[in-house]
Protein backbone atom coordinates (compact mmCIF):
# COMPACT_ATOMS: atom_id res chain seq x y z
CA UNK A 1 0.00 0.00 0.00
CA UNK A 2 1.38 3.44 -0.90
CA UNK A 3 2.29 6.22 1.51
CA UNK A 4 -0.70 8.64 2.00
CA UNK A 5 1.18 11.72 0.83
CA UNK A 6 -1.96 13.88 0.65
CA UNK A 7 -2.13 13.72 4.44
CA UNK A 8 1.30 15.34 4.71
CA UNK A 9 0.45 18.36 2.55
CA UNK A 10 -0.96 20.46 5.46
CA UNK A 11 2.19 19.80 7.47
CA UNK A 12 4.30 20.85 4.53
CA UNK A 13 2.25 24.06 4.25
CA UNK A 14 2.69 24.83 7.96
CA UNK A 15 6.42 24.14 7.80
CA UNK A 16 6.74 26.32 4.72
CA UNK A 17 4.89 29.20 6.37
CA UNK A 18 7.01 29.04 9.52
CA UNK A 19 10.15 28.79 7.46
CA UNK A 20 9.20 31.73 5.27
CA UNK A 21 8.36 34.01 8.21
CA UNK A 22 11.54 33.00 10.01
CA UNK A 23 13.66 33.73 6.97
CA UNK A 24 11.92 37.07 6.34
CA UNK A 25 12.37 38.20 9.96
CA UNK A 26 16.00 37.16 9.88
CA UNK A 27 16.55 39.15 6.67
CA UNK A 28 14.85 42.21 8.22
CA UNK A 29 17.07 41.95 11.31
CA UNK A 30 20.17 41.66 9.13
CA UNK A 31 19.13 44.75 7.15
CA UNK A 32 18.68 46.66 10.39
CA UNK A 33 22.12 45.61 11.63
CA UNK A 34 24.22 46.39 8.60
CA UNK A 35 24.31 42.87 7.18
CA UNK A 36 25.28 41.21 10.48
CA UNK A 37 23.39 39.12 13.01
CA UNK A 38 21.59 41.07 15.71
CA UNK A 39 23.16 41.60 19.13
CA UNK A 40 21.30 40.03 22.02
CA UNK A 41 21.72 40.20 25.79
CA UNK A 42 23.26 43.65 25.45
CA UNK A 43 24.41 44.93 28.86
CA UNK A 44 25.68 48.36 29.85
CA UNK A 45 29.26 47.55 28.82
CA UNK A 46 28.08 46.50 25.36
CA UNK A 47 25.88 49.57 25.07
CA UNK A 48 28.80 51.80 25.98
CA UNK A 49 31.09 50.06 23.47
CA UNK A 50 28.44 50.31 20.72
CA UNK A 51 28.11 54.02 21.50
CA UNK A 52 31.88 54.35 21.10
CA UNK A 53 31.66 52.50 17.77
CA UNK A 54 29.04 54.97 16.64
CA UNK A 55 31.30 57.87 17.57
CA UNK A 56 34.19 56.24 15.71
CA UNK A 57 32.51 55.08 12.52
CA UNK A 58 29.08 56.72 12.36
CA UNK A 59 27.18 53.42 12.48
CA UNK A 60 26.08 51.59 15.60
CA UNK A 61 27.47 48.29 14.25
CA UNK A 62 30.37 49.76 12.30
CA UNK A 63 33.85 48.44 13.04
CA UNK A 64 37.33 49.65 12.12
CA UNK A 65 40.76 48.46 13.05
CA UNK A 66 42.67 51.71 12.64
CA UNK A 67 45.28 52.38 15.25
CA UNK A 68 44.55 56.11 15.52
CA UNK A 69 41.15 57.63 16.10
CA UNK A 70 39.89 60.31 13.67
CA UNK A 71 40.51 63.91 14.68
CA UNK A 72 38.03 65.24 17.21
CA UNK A 73 37.18 61.81 18.61
CA UNK A 74 38.52 62.61 22.04
CA UNK A 75 36.17 65.58 22.26
CA UNK A 76 32.98 63.93 21.02
CA UNK A 77 32.01 62.09 24.19
CA UNK A 78 28.87 63.85 25.39
CA UNK A 79 28.08 65.00 28.92
CA UNK A 80 24.60 63.87 29.82
CA UNK A 81 22.80 66.72 31.56
CA UNK A 82 19.37 67.20 33.01
CA UNK A 83 17.44 70.23 34.03
CA UNK A 84 17.72 71.01 37.73
CA UNK A 85 14.56 71.01 39.78
CA UNK A 86 14.66 73.56 42.53
Amino acid at each position, binding site marked *: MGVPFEAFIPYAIMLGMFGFSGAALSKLRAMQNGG*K*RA*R*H*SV*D*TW*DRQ*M*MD*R*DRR*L*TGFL*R*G*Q*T*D*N*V*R*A*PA*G*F*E*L*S*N*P*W*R*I*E*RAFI
Partner: protein
Amino acid sequence: MASRQPRFNQQVLIDTTPLPDSIPKVPEIGSSSAPLLSASYFIGARCKAYNDDYMLCKTESNGKGETECLKEGRKVTRCAASVLEDVNKSCLQQFREHWECLDNNNQQLWQCRRWERPLNKCVFDNLNLEKKIPGAPTNEIPVHLRKRQIFAHSIATQ
Protein backbone atom coordinates in the same frame (compact mmCIF):
# COMPACT_ATOMS: atom_id res chain seq x y z
CA MET B 1 23.47 45.34 37.86
CA ALA B 2 19.92 46.14 38.91
CA SER B 3 21.21 48.18 41.82
CA ARG B 4 22.83 50.94 39.78
CA GLN B 5 21.44 54.42 40.34
CA PRO B 6 19.42 55.45 37.29
CA ARG B 7 20.68 58.53 35.51
CA PHE B 8 18.10 60.23 33.33
CA ASN B 9 19.08 62.96 30.94
CA GLN B 10 17.11 65.18 28.63
CA GLN B 11 19.99 66.89 26.92
CA VAL B 12 23.49 66.21 25.88
CA LEU B 13 26.39 68.64 25.96
CA ILE B 14 29.45 68.23 23.78
CA ASP B 15 32.32 70.30 25.10
CA THR B 16 34.80 71.02 22.36
CA THR B 17 37.46 72.84 24.35
CA PRO B 18 40.64 70.80 23.92
CA LEU B 19 42.93 69.84 26.77
CA PRO B 20 45.52 72.46 27.84
CA ASP B 21 48.90 72.33 26.13
CA SER B 22 50.66 71.36 29.34
CA ILE B 23 49.28 67.82 28.94
CA PRO B 24 51.16 65.77 26.31
CA LYS B 25 48.98 64.81 23.38
CA VAL B 26 48.53 61.09 22.76
CA PRO B 27 46.29 59.99 19.86
CA GLU B 28 43.31 57.94 20.98
CA ILE B 29 42.91 54.35 19.86
CA GLY B 30 40.80 54.16 16.73
CA SER B 31 39.75 50.51 16.89
CA SER B 32 36.15 49.68 17.63
CA SER B 33 34.81 46.97 19.92
CA ALA B 34 35.37 43.77 17.90
CA PRO B 35 39.06 44.35 16.97
CA LEU B 36 39.77 45.49 20.52
CA LEU B 37 38.21 42.36 21.96
CA SER B 38 40.16 40.23 19.52
CA ALA B 39 43.47 41.89 20.44
CA SER B 40 42.66 42.27 24.13
CA TYR B 41 44.64 39.29 25.38
CA PHE B 42 47.69 40.37 23.37
CA ILE B 43 47.41 43.88 24.77
CA GLY B 44 47.22 42.28 28.20
CA ALA B 45 50.29 40.17 27.52
CA ARG B 46 52.43 43.14 26.51
CA CYS B 47 50.99 45.94 28.65
CA LYS B 48 50.27 44.16 31.93
CA ALA B 49 52.55 46.44 33.96
CA TYR B 50 51.08 49.69 32.64
CA ASN B 51 47.51 48.42 32.97
CA ASP B 52 48.05 47.32 36.56
CA ASP B 53 49.64 50.69 37.35
CA TYR B 54 46.63 52.52 35.95
CA MET B 55 44.12 50.36 37.81
CA LEU B 56 46.02 50.82 41.05
CA CYS B 57 46.11 54.58 40.54
CA LYS B 58 42.38 54.71 39.89
CA THR B 59 41.58 52.58 42.92
CA GLU B 60 43.76 54.64 45.25
CA SER B 61 42.63 58.03 44.04
CA ASN B 62 39.19 57.81 45.65
CA GLY B 63 37.10 59.27 42.90
CA LYS B 64 39.61 61.82 41.58
CA GLY B 65 41.17 59.32 39.19
CA GLU B 66 40.05 61.10 36.04
CA THR B 67 42.36 64.01 36.69
CA GLU B 68 45.10 62.37 38.71
CA CYS B 69 45.76 59.28 36.62
CA LEU B 70 46.21 60.96 33.25
CA LYS B 71 49.91 60.04 33.10
CA GLU B 72 49.30 56.32 33.67
CA GLY B 73 46.44 56.51 31.18
CA ARG B 74 48.76 57.92 28.51
CA LYS B 75 51.14 55.03 29.05
CA VAL B 76 48.28 52.53 28.67
CA THR B 77 47.10 54.17 25.45
CA ARG B 78 50.58 54.23 23.93
CA CYS B 79 51.23 50.58 24.78
CA ALA B 80 47.89 49.37 23.43
CA ALA B 81 48.40 51.40 20.25
CA SER B 82 51.79 49.75 19.77
CA VAL B 83 50.27 46.27 20.08
CA LEU B 84 47.52 47.09 17.60
CA GLU B 85 50.02 48.54 15.15
CA ASP B 86 52.20 45.43 15.33
CA VAL B 87 49.22 43.10 14.88
CA ASN B 88 48.04 45.16 11.91
CA LYS B 89 51.47 44.97 10.32
CA SER B 90 52.11 41.26 10.71
CA CYS B 91 48.82 39.36 11.07
CA LEU B 92 46.21 41.56 9.38
CA GLN B 93 44.41 38.77 7.49
CA GLN B 94 43.85 36.48 10.48
CA PHE B 95 43.05 39.45 12.71
CA ARG B 96 40.35 40.72 10.32
CA GLU B 97 38.79 37.29 9.94
CA HIS B 98 38.64 36.83 13.69
CA TRP B 99 37.05 40.14 14.49
CA GLU B 100 34.59 39.89 11.64
CA CYS B 101 33.48 36.54 13.10
CA LEU B 102 33.19 38.09 16.56
CA ASP B 103 31.11 40.93 15.19
CA ASN B 104 28.69 38.46 13.66
CA ASN B 105 28.40 36.42 16.83
CA ASN B 106 27.48 38.90 19.54
CA GLN B 107 31.15 39.35 20.55
CA GLN B 108 31.28 35.86 22.01
CA LEU B 109 34.79 34.44 21.90
CA TRP B 110 33.74 30.80 22.11
CA GLN B 111 31.90 30.92 18.76
CA CYS B 112 35.01 31.88 16.85
CA ARG B 113 37.76 29.56 18.05
CA ARG B 114 38.35 28.30 14.50
CA TRP B 115 39.67 31.72 13.48
CA GLU B 116 41.28 32.42 16.81
CA ARG B 117 43.77 29.55 16.56
CA PRO B 118 45.60 30.81 13.43
CA LEU B 119 45.60 34.34 14.87
CA ASN B 120 47.14 33.14 18.14
CA LYS B 121 49.74 31.16 16.24
CA CYS B 122 50.64 34.06 13.93
CA VAL B 123 50.93 36.55 16.79
CA PHE B 124 53.04 34.13 18.81
CA ASP B 125 55.37 33.53 15.88
CA ASN B 126 55.77 37.17 14.87
CA LEU B 127 55.29 39.19 18.05
CA ASN B 128 56.03 36.61 20.74
CA LEU B 129 52.79 37.40 22.60
CA GLU B 130 50.84 34.54 24.06
CA LYS B 131 47.22 34.62 25.13
CA LYS B 132 46.83 33.66 28.76
CA ILE B 133 43.59 33.87 30.70
CA PRO B 134 44.39 35.38 34.11
CA GLY B 135 42.91 33.49 37.03
CA ALA B 136 42.39 30.26 35.12
CA PRO B 137 42.92 27.12 37.23
CA THR B 138 46.23 25.53 36.38
CA ASN B 139 45.15 21.92 36.58
CA GLU B 140 42.77 22.12 33.60
CA ILE B 141 43.22 22.96 29.94
CA PRO B 142 42.34 26.65 29.40
CA VAL B 143 39.05 27.18 27.54
CA HIS B 144 40.63 28.65 24.44
CA LEU B 145 42.76 25.54 23.92
CA ARG B 146 40.01 22.97 24.31
CA LYS B 147 38.93 21.01 21.28
CA ARG B 148 35.19 21.10 21.99
CA GLN B 149 33.45 24.38 22.88
CA ILE B 150 30.33 23.33 24.75
CA PHE B 151 28.33 26.50 24.12
CA ALA B 152 29.11 27.06 20.45
CA HIS B 153 26.19 27.05 18.07
CA SER B 154 27.77 24.94 15.37
CA ILE B 155 30.64 22.51 15.02
CA ALA B 156 31.95 24.35 11.97
CA THR B 157 33.05 27.41 13.91
CA GLN B 158 34.72 25.70 16.86
